[in-house]
């Protein structure tokens, strides 16, 4: 496996920036924003390493969500009940909003009067839609499985 360190740093940095930006949007306190950033960086680092290792986007996203969920659990004593929310904030930059938009654009294009190459368009649209479903499912499953396995009474 070859890891492009610069690319990895780039993904971690912008994952951290995106997660802390969403942290402000979700009204996390100042103290928690650094944890949002750490959570986003961990998610994107894990996903990038897994993709570099040849994993599919969905499998890499699942591993990243599980890693962030585990990180939250390990820091539970320090973060208290915020650990779940922080894990979610870290995973938000992996939500496949771009693919969802492309899938909906594809559906619109398919309903046009005379679409160019409708078969190819249908396949591409289906590919985007399935990618949205599986990636979102991977995030939810990664977080939920960790949450339920490492469950504590006040979670």
């Amino acid at each position, binding site marked *: 496996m070859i890891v492009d360190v610069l690319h990895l740093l780039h993904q971690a940095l912008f994952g951290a920036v995106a997660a802390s930006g969403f942290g402000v949007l979700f*009204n996390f306190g100042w103290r928690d924003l650094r944890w949002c950033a750490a959570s986003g960086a961990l998610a994107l680092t894990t996903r990038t390493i897994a993709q570099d290792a040849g994993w599919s986007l969905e499998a890499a996203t699942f591993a990243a969500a599980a890693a962030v969920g585990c990180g939250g659990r390990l820091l539970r004593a320090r973060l208290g009940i915020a650990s779940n929310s922080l894990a979610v904030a870290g995973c938000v930059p992996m939500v496949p909003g771009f693919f969802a938009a492309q899938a909906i654009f594809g559906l619109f294009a398919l309903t046009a009067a005379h679409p160019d190459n409708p078969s190819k368009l249908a396949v591409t649209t289906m590919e985007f839609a399935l990618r949205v479903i599986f990636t979102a499912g991977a995030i939810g499953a990664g977080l939920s499985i960790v949450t339920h396995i490492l469950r504590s009474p006040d979670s």
Partner: protein
Amino acid sequence: MNIVDSTKVTVPVLLNDPELEQIAMTTLLIGRLLMESGARAEVVHEDCSIVAHGFGADHVDLRSGYASVDITVSRGASTITRTMEVGPHGVDHRLSHALRDLVRRIQQGNLTPSEALAKATGLKRDTPHFAPWLVALAAGIACAAFGRLLGLDWPAFLPVAAAGAIGQAVRQVMLRRGVNVFVIAACMAFLSSNLAGLGASRAGSATVNVAMVASVLMLVPGVPALNAQSDIMEGHPTLGTARGVCVIMLLTFIAIGVLLAQVLLGVQP
């Protein structure tokens, strides 16, 4: 084996139990605020149960819908059922955190129902929020960072950040005016996408298409999408499905806004 005689009908007894009423309404208010601040259904159910039992209820049943929560609380011979509307679902971590702290205090027996009701009402009013300009700026930067993760080039970075920030500022104004959230999503997507597209093409970007989508990514309902899955997994499929449908609707309105902007600017999706 005991077989219940279904032909026996118990005569309902109307009991006036003001304290039970207050327990139900306080529990419902906390449940409602938790839902409005983005909590999962399971958290709402667990915390409402803790609150009602903490106040001395013997039995609690809660039903959480997308637009309302219902509760049945029993103590001794008295049983009451109450319902409360739930407002727009948002994400407010500090409010959610403060409410869960309040629930812990109730569990420890430190508060009466009336004190807890007053505190929960106060939390909704007094929970601090970031300044609107800071939220707008953070949303813009988050969009641009998100764009970089999607392959946005550097010339488009600032235009996307600016378009996202302006869009978020307009969104806050429209939310304060009570405009429908789906209409806001479409209008904001159209505005931000246009601004990002124009800015990115002026800046010489080769990723105008990505810029137009990246500028609206703060609208993507990530937390509701994850909550929808959690709710279904944790035994609340009705609420989870309702959340899922709202997520799909919101994505459709966002896509319509971006698509109209792409048509206007002549950019191929």
